[in-house]
Every structure is written in structure tokens, then in C-alpha cells.
């Protein structure tokens, strides 16, 4: 377990190495988050998956070449160059398979991913037989070893990520149009194909520089999870890009820091788990389509609809008595009005009494108050308006109208009601307060 002293050292960034590594990883997360947003919107999220697996033969091949030419084989720029070339080749292969045959995108991705990875494995199998025994470091690329990153590696990652993020910010407008209306962008004379290739090229670059920090298999998570989480917070693209970048940077920072404290845990896996936690929180609490918000909206709508049904039902009972006596009904009449359960009706009645729409003059008897009657009258009025409108304009059979009117009246805007009313008043001047066009059920 880390001691308090370790924690303090980390939090105060006392080590130069820790500072650089954290900064580099954070920039990487930032760049991945930005680019991932566009990938998500173009529905290409899994392209990153194929590309990241496809880099393996490039890494192994670069190592073999560098050793063959007398180098140590572990120079990071050389390995990254190999990975970059293989990643680009993988991307081109996906496009070629899709274009040249009947194979669909998903299978093309799977083929490139697995075959390139297999070739990489076979090459690594040879590399492991080298006498120099220096192949061990290559494993870091598959799982990521942030803690053992050198300063120079971290600088390389940080600077490249910053450059990618800057380029992405400069091309924000172009990429936005590419994501939302590719045909329009093409018609405007923009180089759509080149922009697309540039985007994919940037995916390859961040994937390759991320190999060391997060590992070959998990780098794709940084491209997918932050943007998917960011979508729950905003509907505007530029905000989504920034939020996604921030989530990416945050999870990289927290994950890398935790891995520095607990060296037994792989950094890549920790980073991904932190990002997944962000995603889960966003999916539950996010204001744009988050689960809680949607549940709340649904419950509110259900409650409103049920309340309106209750008031209207009571009014219609009173109407069927010729509006004689007080507007009231007993429990059993109301229970028979609709197919609602006793418990639900009970709750509804209690809510309506709390709102001041109902009183209970005697046990199990419910009477509309002044306010309740006015509200019920307004609802019935709306409902009848719709019924007549549907019958006269939409040629609906009178017996089928009630259900449709039920659904529509709850979403009616007051302006629409006014317009309908004008229309109906013009056609049927005598219908000041419309009567029900079908017999009321009592």
C-alpha cells in the first residue's frame, strides 16, 4: 500500500518525472477525447479498435528492422513510425475490403483487426527468439506501462497530442460539417475525402502515441468512452468536443496517478475504469438524455395524464347526471371509469386533494372544488374540440375518436387550441361549448 508520504509526493508533483508523465498522459486523453467525438458522430467508433490492433505488426517489424541494421531496436520514434505505417495500412485495408467486395464494414474491421494482430503475434514470436533478449520492452505496448515511461517518451507523447488537439480545434468547422452533412460539404466544394482521410490519419496518430501509455488494446477506450459520456451533457457539438476532451484528460490523469501510487495495477486498465465510471455517471445523471432525467420526465407526463383523466372523468359523470347537484362521484363509479387499479386511483385522488382540485365531503365521495371544476371544464373543452376537429377534418369514425383525442389533448399547446377554436367557431358558430359527439360511458 502507498504511504501517506507517497501520496503527498504525487499530489504535490515533487518528482520531475511524475510531472512530465502526468502532463503527457493528460494531453493524450485530451486529444483522444476530441477526435473520438468526431469518430462517434461519424459512427466509426470501432475503426480505432481495428487500427490499434493493426499497429502490432508495425511495432514488431520496426523492431526487427532496427535490430537488423544494428540498432538496439527499442528506439521509441522508430517503433512509433512502424506502428504508424501499419496502422495506416490497416485503415486502407478496411476501406479497400469494403469497396472491393460484398463484405460489410463490421466484418472488414474484424478481419483487419484479427489478421494484422495475428501477423504481429507471429513476428513477435520470432522477436522473442533474439539473442539480445531486448524484446521484453515490446510487451509494454500491448498493456501500457505509464509508470515506466521516460521523460523523453512523455514529451514526445505530450507534444504530438497537443499538436493533434490544436489541428482538430482549427478544423472544427470542417469536421462538424463532415459529421452532420457530408453531401452538403461535398456540394460546397470541400475536399470531403481528404478531410475524412485526415480525420482517420489523426486517429492513427493518437492511437500510436497512446500505445505506450494505455496499451494497444485499451487505447480505443479513450477514443470511445469520453465522447459517449459527453453526449449526455450537451447537444452542441463544440461543447461536446470540449467536455469529451476534459473527460478524457481527467480519466487519464486520475488513472495514471493511481497507477503511480499502486504500481501493481496496469495504468491503461485504471484509466479505462475511471473513464467508464465517468460514462456511467453521465449516463445516469446527464441532463441530455440521462436516465434520471428521462425517468423524471416520463413520471411527470404519466402523472399529468392521469390527473387530467381523473378530472375529466368526474366532470363527465356529473354531465351525465344533467349537471344536477354538486359535481361529485363515489369511489366505485370512479374505479369503473377507467382500467386503473384501486391503489393507483387512491394515490391520484390524494394528489388531487392536495392540489385543491377535490374535496371529500363524505367517506368515499369526491367532489370537485371551484378550481377543480374550472380545470375539468377546460380539459373537457379541449377534448371535445379535438374530437370534433378529428371528425370534421381527419374523417375519423366517431367511435374511434375518443382514444386519439385522449392522447392528443395532453400535448396541446394553448396557441393551437386558440387556432382550433377560431376554426371551429367559423364553421360551427353555434358550438360555443361543444357537446360530446359520442354517448358518454357512465
Amino acid at each position: 500500500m502507498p504511504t501517506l508520504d507517497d501520496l503527498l509526493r504525487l499530489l504535490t508533483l515533487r518528482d520531475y518525472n511524475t510531472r512530465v508523465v502526468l502532463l503527457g498522459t493528460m494531453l493524450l486523453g485530451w486529444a483522444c477525447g476530441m477526435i473520438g467525438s468526431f469518430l462517434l458522430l461519424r459512427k466509426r467508433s470501432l475503426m480505432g479498435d481495428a487500427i490499434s490492433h493493426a499497429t502490432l505488426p508495425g511495432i514488431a517489424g520496426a523492431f526487427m528492422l532496427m535490430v537488423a541494421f544494428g540498432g538496439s531496436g527499442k528506439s521509441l520514434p522508430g517503433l512509433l513510425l512502424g506502428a504508424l505505417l501499419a496502422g495506416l495500412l490497416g485503415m486502407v485495408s478496411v476501406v479497400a475490403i469494403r469497396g472491393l467486395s460484398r463484405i460489410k464494414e463490421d466484418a472488414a474491421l474484424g478481419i483487419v483487426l484479427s489478421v494484422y494482430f495475428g501477423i504481429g503475434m507471429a513476428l513477435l514470436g520470432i522477436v522473442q527468439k533474439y539473442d539480445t533478449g531486448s524484446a521484453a520492452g515490446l510487451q509494454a505496448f500491448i498493456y501500457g506501462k505509464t509508470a515506466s515511461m521516460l521523460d523523453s517518451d512523455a514529451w514526445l507523447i505530450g507534444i504530438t497530442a497537443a499538436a493533434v488537439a490544436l489541428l482538430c480545434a482549427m478544423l472544427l468547422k470542417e469536421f462538424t460539417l463532415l459529421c452532420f452533412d457530408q453531401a452538403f460539404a461535398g456540394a460546397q466544394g470541400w475536399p470531403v475525402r481528404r478531410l475524412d482521410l485526415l480525420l482517420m490519419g489523426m486517429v492513427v496518430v493518437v492511437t500510436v502515441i497512446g500505445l505506450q501509455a494505455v496499451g494497444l488494446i485499451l487505447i480505443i477506450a479513450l477514443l470511445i468512452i469520453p465522447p459517449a459520456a459527453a453526449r449526455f451533457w450537451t447537444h452542441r457539438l463544440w461543447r461536446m468536443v470540449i467536455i469529451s476532451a476534459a473527460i478524457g484528460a481527467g480519466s487519464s490523469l486520475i488513472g495514471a496517478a493511481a497507477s503511480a501510487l499502486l504500481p501493481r495495477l496496469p495504468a491503461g486498465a485504471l484509466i479505462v475504469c475511471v473513464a467508464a465510471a465517468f460514462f456511467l455517471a453521465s449516463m445516469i445523471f446527464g441532463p441530455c438524455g440521462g436516465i434520471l432525467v428521462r425517468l423524471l420526465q416520463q413520471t411527470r407526463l404519466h402523472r399529468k395524464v392521469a390527473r387530467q383523466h381523473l378530472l375529466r372523468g368526474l366532470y363527465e359523470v356529473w354531465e351525465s347526471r344533467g349537471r344536477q347537484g354538486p359535481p361529485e362521484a363515489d369511489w366505485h363509479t370512479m374505479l369503473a371509469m377507467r382500467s386503473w387499479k384501486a391503489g393507483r386511483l387512491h394515490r391520484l385522488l390524494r394528489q388531487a386533494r392536495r392540489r385543491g382540485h377535490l374535496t371529500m365531503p363524505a367517506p368515499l365521495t369526491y367532489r370537485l372544488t371551484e378550481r377543480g371544476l374550472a380545470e375539468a371544464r377546460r380539459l373537457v373543452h379541449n377534448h371535445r374540440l379535438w374530437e370534433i376537429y378529428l371528425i370534421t377534418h381527419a374523417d375519423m369514425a366517431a367511435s374511434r375518436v375518443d382514444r386519439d383525442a385522449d392522447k392528443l389533448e395532453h400535448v396541446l399547446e394553448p396557441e393551437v387550441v386558440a387556432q382550433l377554436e377560431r376554426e371551429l367557431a367559423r364553421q360551427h358558430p353555434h358550438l360555443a361549448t361543444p357537446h360530446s359527439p359520442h354517448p358518454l360511458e357512465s
Partner: protein
Amino acid sequence: MFDWRMFDTWIVVVGAFSAMACALVGCFLVMRRMSMMGDAISHAVLPGLAAAYMFTGSRESGVMFLGAAAVGVLTALFTQSIHRWGKVEESAAMGVVFTTLFAIGLILIRQAADHVDLDAECVLQGAIEMTPTDMRTFLGLALPRAAWVSGSVLVLNLGLITLFWKEFKISSFDPALATTQGINATFMHYLLMVLVAVTTVACFEAVGSILVIAMLIVPAATACLLSERLSTVIVVSVLLAAASAFLGHLSAITLPRLVGFSDTTTAGMMASVAGAFFLVALLAAPRHGVISKLLTRLNLSLRIVSEDLLGILYRLEEEGKMPHADFPLFAHATGVSTWRIRRALARLRRSRLIVRHQSGFALTDSGREQARQILRSHRLWESYIDRLLNASSHSQHFTAERLEHVTDASTREALAKAIGLAAQDPQGKDIPEN
């Protein structure tokens, strides 16, 4: 150059059983456009495996299969619910789920590393070379334990697919139709997911969890290029899978010798060989291959040039100007490359439609007959377009120029009937008699 031992045979047997089991379910994944689900599940079983190891402390238990099958279904379930509840696009939802599960698996494995003989590399890459060291005898038959495991999964997949053949087939092609026929498409979906997960676990020891996806998808996609019948696709993909296992191991122990090393990983070479099969099919498949498409196109363009050359020769004879024509004239009249004209002339001479004289090429009798039909088509079309469509004479000629190559005898007679008994085309040239 190398010596094949019993050891190698066992490796091939394990590899082939695993690859065939994968290919069987893989066909349905590819057919349903869910290939990446195979990828997702094969990554996501890691925590299930790790948890099972930590629980039982051994590699050979039913608990492992249960854990993996559970995680496989969970992957599909989580993906579905994130897709539905969060309105996240399906492939992105899949990406979120499997990377997270994989990360959790890595952490679990790192935690368990002290107690259990298990590391992530073994799960990722497999250790097929070690499988023959663990032989088990059952019913008097001695096979490597891994072969028993992958063999049983192969039998399981085969049995279930035969049993639910109709259901799998219909729900893969048209889930809505399946539902109207009383087939529970959702059940079939999850059954397939369970099969993929179980197969993945059974094979990870042989080929590793990542290369399982190569065996799931690549042979199936290759077979899809070669055939259109589901049953043929399945048989071909299973055969390809077995061949990949054999050739993969063979190349793993031979190819590295060319560069001075003893051998490399069999699993990696199996995936590479499967990829090579795919590449060959992509290029050379009989109907949908790149080469056959190119050849068809080339053949068609040569036929069109040849027919144009016949037409030119016939027109020359008709005008009585020059009975024989030579190369520069053809090049000038058709405007296509000299290479194509040479090929077309060779083709015409081979089928004895033209002959070569000293002054140039001339039609033979059968060539003249064919040329006459082409000219008849051309001029009939010109008249037809002129009379019935009122197009300009320029477009008449170019439309007729295209249509003359695709007009058969019955169409010609229908055209002749449609324009009445005209003997001349709009330019006043004779329409050759039938």
C-alpha cells in the same frame, strides 16, 4: 527441412477443432453483421475467466465456462441496454462495454497473479504449443486435454446449429419474418451470444482470446465471398478453418527457418494463413472476386471493340471503296488504344470472322453474317429512335452505337415490326435483311 512429429499432429488437431468450432458460429455473426460482437465478447470474457480462476484456482473447471458464458451474455445485454437507455450508437456502446470489461479483467488478473498460474499474455495469445504436454485418456482414446475441450464445443455448436437450423437461418436473415413465424428472435440472439462466449473460452487456450476473432470472422467472410448458399458457406468456412490450422502450424515451424530462426507462434500464423485465404478469395473468387470482375469487364470491352471492327469492315464493303482495311484505319475509326485493337483483331481471327490478306483485313463469310446482324441492329435502332422518340440524329447514332451490342435476334424482329417495313435508316442507308 523439418521433421513432423506426433507433437505437431496434436497441435494441428487442437488448432483445427478450435478453428472449426469458431467458424461454425462465426458464419452467423458475419451474416447478422455482428462481427464486432465476436471481438467484443472475446475481449470481455477476460474478467469472467479471471474471476473463475480466482474462485477455483484451476484452469479446468465448468465454473470457467459458466463465468465466460455469463460475461458473454452480459456483454450483449449491457450493449443493448446502453444502446436503448442511453441512446448511444450500437457500435460505440459495444466499445464502451468491452473495453471496460477487458480493463477490469486485466486488473483482476494482476491481482491474482501471485496465487494462480495465469497471465494476460496467456489469455491473449494462447499457448497452443504447450497443449500436447497435457494428454487425457477418455473412452480409450488419448488426446490433448485442449482437444477434448474444443472438440466438445465443436460438437455442441454443430448439434445446436443442426437442431435450430431453420430458426438460426430465418432469424439471421429477417428477424421480423422470424417473429411472425413464431420464432423467438431475441432468444436466438442470446443463444448465439452464449455459443460465441463458450466457444471463445474453449479456444482461448489454443489460439488466444484475440485470435479467436480471426477464426470467428475470417473463414466465414472468405466463404461468403465464395458462395451465396448458407449451407455451402458454413461447410466451406469450416474447411477453411481446418486448413488454416494445418497450414498455420506448418508455416510456423518452417517459414522462420528461412530467416534463421527455429519457429514462431502457431496461433499468429493461423490467423495470418486465414488472412491469406481471405486475400486470395477477395482477388480470385469465381464470381465476386476482383480479378474475375476485371476479366469480365475486359472481356466485355473487347467484345464491343471487336463488334465495332466488324461493323467498320462491313460498312467499307457496303460502300465498295476498299475491300480490305488495315490497322491505322481501325485506330482512327474507333478511337481506342492500339493494344485493344490488336487484341480484338486477334480474337476475331481466332474465331475465323476475319482473315488477313496482304493489303489488310477482310471479312470471312461467317464474319460478314455477324457484321450484318450488328449493322441491322444499329440501323433498326436509329430508325426506331427517329420515328418513335424524335431524338436528334446525333443522339440517334450514339444511342444505337451502344444498343447494337446488346440486341438479340428477337429484339431485332420486334424493332422491325415496330417501325413498319422500312428498308432504309434515317440517313438513307439500307437496313440489311435478316
